[in-house]
């Protein structure tokens, strides 16, 4: 049985869909994707990164030191990409269904 993907997981995967990013880059991307409404806490972000890496959905591609701070860059693995694709398709189906139902009853004043 496929279980529901939680929002932080989805957002982190989506932030990495187009290119590898480091932790803070993912945090910024999530904020940008959500139009500034969602800002992942560092603990939430890092716990998600750590778990997704353990589960083989992300992999570390390189690391660098900037101003003495360690930055690790992450990218989606094939398994992570497939999972994100499946989730997007499911959300898409739900949104389409909601849209279809809304169109059955026009807005009244």
């Amino acid at each position, binding site marked *: 049985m496929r279980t529901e993907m939680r929002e932080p997981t989805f957002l982190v995967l989506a932030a990495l869909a187009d290119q590898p990013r480091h932790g803070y880059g993912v945090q910024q991307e999530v904020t940008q994707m959500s139009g500034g409404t969602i800002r992942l806490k560092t*603990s939430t972000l*890092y716990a998600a990164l750590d778990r997704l890496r353990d589960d083989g959905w992300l992999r570390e591609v390189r690391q660098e030191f900037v101003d003495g701070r360690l930055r690790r860059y992450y990218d989606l693995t094939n398994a992570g990409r497939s999972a994100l694709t499946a989730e997007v398709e499911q959300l898409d189906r739900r949104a389409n269904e909601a849209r279809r139902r809304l169109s059955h009853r026009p807005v009244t004043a």
Partner: protein
Amino acid sequence: MTGSEDQRSARLIYACFPRSWRTDGRADEALGIAWDGADDAGREDLGAKQALDLSWLGLRARVGAAAQFLPLATRRLVVGLALGGGVGLAVCLLFIAAVPPTTSPGAAPLASAGTALYLAWILSSLVAAAGSEALARLCLAGTAVLTAATALFAESAGIRRPALFLLAILFALSVLALGVRPLARQRAQERWAIVGSAIIAGFGIGALGRGATYFPSTSLYYGNALMLSTLAKVTLLAFAVAALLALGSLTGRRYYLPALVISAGPWAVLAACGSTAQGRAVYIHIATATVSWFFATTMVLTMNRPNKAAVPA
């Protein structure tokens, strides 16, 4: 905040992380993310909220790191046995209303603070069996806190409570079962096999074993579990049939046999004890039923590897 206070605060946060995180750079990386955010916001320190958040991450990592010493298969086994054992015990105790050791025959059931704990256990295990990992953790954590509070405060508040050793066992099992994550990846049929059959086994042990000694003169028990009233026989038979049918539909064909062994163990052992199921025989019945439950549950938990299709939380 001064420079030295900053350093002290950073050292404290750093100390929250387990050694493995400090040596492989994960603690540095997490702190780096927080410092990048502080820089962008034009702050010279992390701020109390961020410091607390990082400390929380570190402490959670410590708990996780401690669990990582055990391989996944072992963790799954420990969690499964804790969850099944906890709910089985809770059902058993709920049924016999384990009020203080001085319980007299015919004492009103459910007249103890333990009732809330037993119901909390049943709820938590059902949530875990349904696959909701986060909610199950919340319920189990609440159960652990409730158990500790009962042990510490019930007596002074004048509320009857189960014996302390029972509370200690329930507390330990709820803490162990808090690691429900490995179990959440098992197939739903396996989770139901563990939880559902433990509930039925707990009922069997409680109702047929101890129940007979606690309620020897009520309309249900006549001092011996095999000398039940007609009403009790019909009730138990109806329950057994309904429970086993429900278990079959929840566990599927693959897990039904081990689930049946777990469920029916106590009932079969009691029948084997025959009309001598009193005194020492009751304890033999409980011990044998517990051992059969242990082996059958272990069998269910080792039948399969985790379900890879499950989504990380």
